[in-house]
């Protein structure tokens, strides 16, 4: 059974997630505080950490950064749909980002995927990424700063609401290939030095 750790400063929400996920995962602990969470995660060595973005003391990003040296995988879960939160969390090292309105079954599936090392892209996140990498701006590192046509296709289908399995069937490729495309996009998102990524996020704040 996958060991799961919950980081969230909303007691009510923690309780809800606990009861929803308790039968699917072994919940090894929870915390609502950055320092406390870092220590507890180091001690309990969970497979996946479900982490809230906004928390006192530096937020979920601080936790992810503090544990960058570990094998722990993070799935960000937040009420925020703000692009800069999403991008910041992914760039800090999270393997995926889902919002708190996600259906329980989908959340279970997302945690499984993250545990296996896959990236979890919600339709909205796929949209953000397509937006951030839009346009053919001269890239300083084409391998990192641009998406391949195939990656764009995969993201587009995810944005249209298809699960990985359906994406695979539509493109007539294997699910594994879809997963590797998505992981490649995640890597680009984390490593790209594209100015647009940063500027794009700040631009959107004013919307």
């Amino acid at each position, binding site marked *: 059974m996958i060991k799961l750790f919950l980081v969230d400063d909303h007691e009510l929400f923690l309780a809800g997630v606990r009861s929803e996920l308790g039968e699917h995962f072994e919940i090894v602990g929870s915390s609502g505080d950055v320092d406390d969470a870092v220590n507890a995660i180091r001690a309990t060595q969970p497979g996946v950490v479900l982490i809230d973005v906004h928390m006192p003391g530096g937020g979920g990003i601080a936790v992810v950064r503090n544990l960058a040296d570990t094998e722990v995988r993070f799935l960000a879960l937040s009420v925020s749909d703000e692009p800069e939160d999403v991008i910041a969390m992914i760039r800090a090292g999270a393997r995926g980002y889902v919002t708190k309105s996600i259906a329980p079954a989908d959340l279970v599936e997302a945690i499984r995927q993250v545990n296996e090392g896959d990236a979890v892209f919600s*339709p909205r996140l796929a949209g953000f990424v*397509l937006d951030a990498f839009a346009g053919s701006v001269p890239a300083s590192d084409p391998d990192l700063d641009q998406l391949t046509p195939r990656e764009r296709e995969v993201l587009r289908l995810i944005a249209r609401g298809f699960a990985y399995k359906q994406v695979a069937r539509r493109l007539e490729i294997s699910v594994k290939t879809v997963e590797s495309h998505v992981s490649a996009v995640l890597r680009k998102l984390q490593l790209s030095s594209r100015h647009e990524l940063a500027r794009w996020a700040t631009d959107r704040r004013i919307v």
Partner: protein
Amino acid sequence: MESATTTKARLEIHRDVKQRVLGGVAAGLGRSLGIEPVYVRAGFVSLGLVYGLGLVLYLGLWAILPEEPSPETAPVPGIDRRQRFGLLFVFAGALLVLRGIGFWPGDVVMVAGSAVAFGLAAMWDRSESNRRRDEARLLLPGDRGERSVGRLIVGGLLLLVGLGLFAGGIDAISGLGTVVLAALVTAAGVTLVLGPWLVGLARDLGRERTERIRQEERAELAAHLHDSVLQTLALMQRTDDPRRVVTLARAQERELRRWLYEKGPAVEGARLVAALRSAADRVETDFDVPVEVVAVGDRSLDDATRAMVGAAGEAMINAARHSGAESVSVYLEVGDEVVDLWVTDQGKGFDPGAIPRDRRGIAASIVARMSRHGGTAEVSSVPGEGTEVHLRLERG
């Protein structure tokens, strides 16, 4: 002179433009030397009496000293009493040297001017009260301001001596009536002594105003939450249908988000994405099915894109009403040449060869709407897997 250069090199003096009155020279010097800038300013004024030497010095330093690279640097720790006296002696010594070489406008002017300048400085020195304001809550009332009273007295005495000498000097020269002069001097003295207090009062008033604005904002926030969030929560408690609860929650969430993150009421229809979202919101509320909108890019609304939103709205209604899907996905992509829009559901789908009459009608109207504006609409569906409507508009 030599010692001054070494001090400068070691302390790295910058002009402190944040605290400046003129060029920030005095503020920067004061910070580097660890004394209140008002005293440095008094020093410049005092030297200024020596045929404008202070002014020349000030302008020279203004030109030489670089502007502070980062105003956030921590303040230099203050110097102790002994060093402060040292600085005073250096200053007095410099004045004596000037007097010795004959570069001197006269004892009365210099003593009177310096006394007034430094007396004023002592009174205007707010460092103690600034520091104390933060601790005020922890201090006993009697403890407060004892030292600043002492400084006020010293400053006042210096001021009186200076003004007296000054008055005497002027009186001797101009023969102005002693009474008039005394009245003028008294008025000036009172203004100068009360000045710091008046400034403090104005500052307190400003703080009060800020606090009032903050309170008004809080009241507005409370009113808004009461009208929207609390009402919705109450409504949700009275609703048995879980689907309805979800819809209510989502609608409220959207509304709250818009209120929190968007400035002013959203102008519906000004932009394509905004229009599409509000169409999706309507479907969601009417049919209790979540409609997820993802948009890449945006453009202004014209006849063609307005028709596209209308067609998408019909597709959403169609999906919400007939597909039985848990949710409907809408994906909009605005490119340079084309605008693509997909309305997708993972519902039961249908056999395109055997469409019920009413559904064919909707499909036809979607296609018709799009083609009127040079666009296309394609409906594809697989029984058991879902339906997808693809709208496309090429930019003419």
